[in-house]
C-alpha cells in the first residue's frame, strides 16, 4: 500500500489487516508512556486546506506516538494565500524531504492529484464530499471492538442516519461496512439523499422509527446548519422529531445496540439525549480509536514493509 486515498481501494482482507494492526496500537495507547520508536526519522506533514482541529490533532498524535516528526502546515498562514499553486506547495514541501502528506482539502480528488507531484505517501484526511477513509476505518474498528466482530460484519445491521448527500463519512462508511459484510440502511429525508443510490449496496428508508428497533449499530451524522439555509430541511426541530435520537427512540434500541457519531455533535439535534445516559454511546471510543487507526495507517505506509515477502524462516 503506497497511499490511502479511497476506502474503496481496500478489500475486506486489507481492511482486516489494518484493523489487526490497530490492536497493537491500542495496546501502545494504553501504556503509561504511549510511544514507540517505529517511525523514528520519518517526517509526516499535516496539510489541511479545510479547518479540522479534531482530525488534524488525531493524525498529529498518531504520528508522534510512533516517533515520527510532524510538520503542521496551516494553510491560512501559508503562501497559498499569496497565490502559490497546490502543485508548487507540494513540490516545495517535498523538496524539504518528507515521507507522508496527510491532506484535507475541500475539493474531491485533491489527494489523488497530489500523488502525481510527490514521491511521499499520501493519506486522504477528507476531500470534499468524496472520501474520508480513516474515519471509515476507525468506525469499523469501533464496531469490531464493541461487538466482538473480529472476523467481519456478516449479518450485522447498521443504520446511517442524516445528511447522506453531503457526507464523505457516509460514503466511506457505506463502502467499508458493506465490504465487511454488513447490511446498511440509509435513513434520511429524500432531500438529504444523494441523487442516485442505485449503485450503492444499501437499503433506503425515510422513517427512522421503522428501523431503529432492529439495528445493531445506529450511526448518526452531523446535521449541518447550512442545510437549513439551503432549505433542504424545514427546521432543526422538525429534523430532530423525525430523525433525531430522542429519549423515546433511545428506549427502543436493543440492549446491545451501539450509537456512533463522527463528531462534532449537535446536542439536541441529531442526539437529543445526554450521551452520558446512553449506555451504547461509542462517541469517545471513536475518538480514541481514531488515533490508533491512524497510527496503523501511518505505520502501514511508512514502516511496515508490507510490500516485502514474509521471511520464510520466521523471526529468530
Amino acid at each position: 500500500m503506497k497511499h490511502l486515498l479511497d476506502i474503496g481501494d481496500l478489500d475486506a482482507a486489507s481492511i482486516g489487516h489494518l484493523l489487526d494492526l490497530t490492536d497493537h496500537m491500542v495496546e501502545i495507547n494504553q501504556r503509561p508512556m504511549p510511544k514507540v520508536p517505529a517511525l523514528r526519522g520519518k517526517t509526516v506533514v499535516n496539510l489541511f486546506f479545510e479547518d479540522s482541529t479534531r482530525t488534524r490533532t488525531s493524525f498529529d498524535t498518531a504520528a508522534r506516538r510512533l516517533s515520527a516528526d510532524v510538520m503542521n502546515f496551516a494553510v491560512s498562514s501559508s503562501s497559498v494565500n499569496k497565490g502559490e499553486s497546490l502543485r508548487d506547495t507540494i513540490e516545495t514541501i517535498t523538496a524539504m524531504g518528507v515521507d507522508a502528506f496527510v491532506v484535507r482539502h475541500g475539493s474531491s480528488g485533491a489527494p489523488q492529484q497530489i500523488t502525481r507531484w510527490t514521491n511521499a505517501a499520501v493519506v486522504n484526511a477528507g476531500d470534499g464530499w468524496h472520501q474520508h477513509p480513516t474515519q471509515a476505518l476507525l468506525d469499523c474498528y469501533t464496531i469490531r471492538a464493541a461487538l466482538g466482530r473480529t472476523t467481519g460484519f456478516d449479518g450485522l445491521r447498521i443504520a446511517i442516519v442524516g445528511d447522506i448527500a453531503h457526507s464523505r463519512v457516509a460514503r466511506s462508511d457505506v463502502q467499508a461496512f458493506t465490504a465487511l459484510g454488513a447490511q446498511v440502511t440509509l435513513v434520511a429525508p429524500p432531500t438529504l439523499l444523494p441523487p442516485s443510490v442505485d449503485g450503492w449496496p444499501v437499503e433506503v428508508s425515510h422513517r427512522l422509527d421503522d428501523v431503529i428497533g432492529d439495528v445493531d449499530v445506529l450511526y448518526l451524522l452531523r446535521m449541518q446548519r447550512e442545510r437549513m439555509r439551503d432549505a433542504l430541511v424545514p427546521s432543526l426541530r422538525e429534523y430532530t422529531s423525525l430523525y433525531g435520537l430522542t429519549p423515546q427512540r433511545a428506549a427502543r434500541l436493543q440492549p446491545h445496540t451501539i450509537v456512533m457519531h463522527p463528531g462534532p455533535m449537535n446536542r439536541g439535534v441529531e442526539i437529543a439525549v445526554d450521551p452520558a445516559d446512553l449506555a451504547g454511546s461509542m462517541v469517545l471510543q471513536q475518538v480514541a480509536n481514531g488515533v490508533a487507526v491512524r497510527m496503523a495507517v501511518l505505520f502501514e505506509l511508512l514502516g511496515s514493509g508490507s510490500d516485502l515477502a514474509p521471511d520464510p524462516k520466521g523471526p529468530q
Partner: protein
Amino acid sequence: MQAEGGRTVMSADDVRRAIIRIGHEIVERNHGTQGVVLVGLQRGGVWIAQQLAEAIARSEGLDTMPIGTLDVSFYRDDVGLRPIVPGSVTTLPGTLDGTHVVLVDDVLFTGRTVRAALDAINDHGRPRSVQLAVIVDRGHRELPIRPDYVGKNLPTSRAENVAVTADGVVLT
C-alpha cells in the same frame, strides 16, 4: 521423530525436561519466585513462557505465576523488514517496576530480537533485573547479549533454520 527433510535435535521429552530444568534454575537464581515475571516474546516464546509458568507453579506449590507477552515489532532495528503478525499484541501484568523479568524465547540467534525486547521492556517500567531464557542458543551473535538459561547449545550454520515446538527441535 524425523521431520520432513530436517534433523531432530531435541525430542518432545527433551524440550519438556529442558523447560522443567530452566524453571528450577530460575527459582534457584532468584531465591524463590518473589517479583519474578515471565515474559514470552511474540510469538515463539509465548507458549514456552506458559509452560515455564506451569512448571514453576507446580514445583513451588503456587496457583499461578505472573506471566506476560511482549511484541517487539515496533522496536526492531530492521522495522519494515518483517511484517507485523496479527494477534501478537503485548500483554503484561501491570507495571514492571521492581520486578525480575525473565524474557523467554524459543531461539537465540543474532540477539537483535532481545535487544529490541530490552527497549520494549524499558517502556513498561524499570525492572530490578532482566534475565533471558531460551530453548536453543544457536550462536552467531551480532550484539553483546548472552542467555541466563539455555535448553541446549546448538552449533549451526547461518543458513540453517531451527524450529522449536512442543514436539521437539528440528534443524533444517
